[in-house]
């Protein structure tokens, strides 16, 4: 028995002294519960919407006010034409537009029937569904108050139009998300291991003593992974188009170009981790914690970022995958051109430059 207990004690000491694993065992569940409970919610709140009110009468104004007052919606702006609606959607500012036809109240009073059009951004089909449902239920509530103590019931019907993804295919929001995840995973995880492996093997020293310049070493190490990533992207795109029926509405060239950019960003992150890590295990752990998980949680493809508490939204800005996801959705699903993604592209370029700069600088510092 004593033998047995002594062994248990030893195992306990191992766990206790391995700080990193301890963190995972104790802190992770806590953080996860908090995150999932508060921040990561599929429920959409304060979604920005627009109103195109062609009647501007008592009824439309009441309905508009009720929707805006709901905790699910927040009025972004009033628009005055269909073109305006299209532009606002393209800019990604709103997820829903409510369109009242002319003579809304007049029609309602005289024919007991009127229609409201709801236009939703279905590049994220789940959110689009939820938003149209919320809006419809608010409108139904209004209809119910109208119909109290009334002989002939009024009926307000909604006509829904799903933009970009009329069939509400889940794959439309899923595929861009997977692209971001896969690229991030392959590049960052693999590059971080690649450099650390040399350190562990002892061959890094010899290379450092050779005439090969440090930045050339770094770039030479990342190029094979660039190729692997390109292969991955090609596979995903081919499967998406031919098996999942997700179209590439926009320019394929632009999509590939942006993907190459994101790959380089992910590679730079991998190198940064590699520089710091002393063992492959550390590198892998760091990659998981700082790359894979944030990409999964904050890129926006599983949980809408707009619905997270403000501090988490700020954090999500630092995650490169968030910007890539927006870019891919815009190009692939919405068919938009470079003028709509230049801002996000610039952010990715900036991140890459900073990351590479720090990596190369750190690499040199270790030689001093």
């Amino acid at each position, binding site marked *: 028995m004593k033998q047995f207990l002594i062994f248990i004690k030893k195992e306990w000491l191992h766990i206790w002294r391995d700080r990193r694993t301890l963190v995972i065992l104790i802190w992770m569940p806590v953080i996860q519960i908090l995150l999932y409970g508060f921040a990561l919610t599929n429920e959409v709140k304060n979604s920005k919407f627009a109103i195109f009110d062609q009647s501007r009468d008592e009824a439309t104004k009441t309905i508009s006010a009720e929707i805006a007052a709901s905790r699910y919606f927040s009025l972004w702006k009033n628009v005055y034409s269909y073109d305006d609606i299209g532009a606002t959607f393209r800019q990604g500012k709103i997820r829903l537009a409510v369109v009242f036809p002319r003579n809304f109240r007049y029609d309602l009073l005289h024919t007991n029937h009127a229609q409201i059009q709801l236009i939703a951004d279905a590049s994220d089909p789940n959110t689009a569904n939820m938003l149209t449902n919320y809006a419809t239920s608010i409108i139904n509530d209004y209809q119910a108050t109208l119909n109290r103590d009334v002989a002939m019931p009024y009926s307000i019907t909604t006509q829904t139009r799903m933009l970009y993804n009329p069939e509400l295919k889940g794959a439309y929001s899923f595929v861009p998300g997977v692209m971001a995840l896969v690229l991030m995973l392959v590049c960052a995880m693999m590059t971080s291991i690649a450099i650390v492996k040399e350190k562990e093997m002892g061959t890094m020293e010899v290379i450092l003593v050779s005439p090969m310049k440090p930045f050339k070493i770094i770039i030479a190490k990342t190029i094979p992974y660039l190729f692997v990533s390109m292969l991955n992207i090609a596979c995903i795109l081919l499967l998406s188009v031919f098996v999942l029926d997700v179209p590439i509405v926009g320019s394929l060239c632009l999509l590939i170009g942006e993907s190459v950019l994101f790959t380089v960003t992910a590679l730079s992150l991998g190198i940064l981790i590699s520089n710091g890590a002393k063992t492959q295990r550390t590198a892998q752990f760091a990659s998981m914690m700082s790359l894979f998980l944030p990409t999964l949680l904050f890129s926006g493809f599983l949980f809408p970022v707009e619905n997270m508490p403000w501090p988490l939204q700020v954090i999500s800005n630092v995650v490169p995958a968030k910007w890539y996801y927006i870019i891919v959705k815009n190009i692939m699903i919405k068919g938009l051109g470079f003028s709509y993604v230049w801002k996000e592209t610039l952010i990715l370029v900036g991140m890459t430059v900073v990351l590479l700069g720090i990596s190369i600088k750190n690499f040199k510092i270790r030689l*001093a």
Partner: protein
Amino acid sequence: MAKEKVITAKELTKKFGDFVAVDKITFDVEKGEIFGFLGANGAGKTTAMRMLCGLSLPSSGQATVAGFDVYKENEKIKKNIGYMSQKFSLYEDLTIVENIRFYAGIYGLKDDKIKDKTASLIKELHMEGSEKALVRSLPLGWKQKLAFSIAIVHEPAIVFLDEPTGGVDPITRREFWGLIYEASGRGITIFVTTHYMDEAEYCNRVSVMVDGRIDALDSPANLMKQYDSKSMDGVFLQLARKAVRKGD
């Protein structure tokens, strides 16, 4: 006739914060010499060697390697030295030939030269037939010889060997030193650090580092006379006992 000096060091120092790892060491190494750089663990050997290889900048003092200044002509030094690390610096998942080609390539050898070198190396090491074997499948002695040959594939002026015979049996060590003598005969200067005092006796001259300083610098024969000992072991023990620093 004064021989050409391939390494010169004058008051070479390396500090990490307040800790003085290498304390004003001064010494020279002549061309073609086999120079043994001895010292206990933590004495500062590896740090000193890293400064000479261009892996680390000195805090103060001067040094030249192959005639080039360690502060300003780092790149030129790297082209003229070879290096073999403790872990043999070979890629286990690459074949013998792939390893040779890689290192020859990064040292800037031209394609046809690489081909020639590869063939002659395989022949010298008696590894014919094993060209396509992965390094991880080779016996330790073979790896060691291969690593050394690769370290001098570009015929550098000096080759730095960092504890090259760790974990290897005495017979294989003897054979390895045979290779070292051969290279020295060809005019390559050998700078080797080692724990094995019997190997110290194979060197032309040795220096013994204690607590960051060089406390002895002479031929093994002279040192043994000076410290009245029949072996370098005895010399080393007398010097190292004075050490204040604990080994790492």
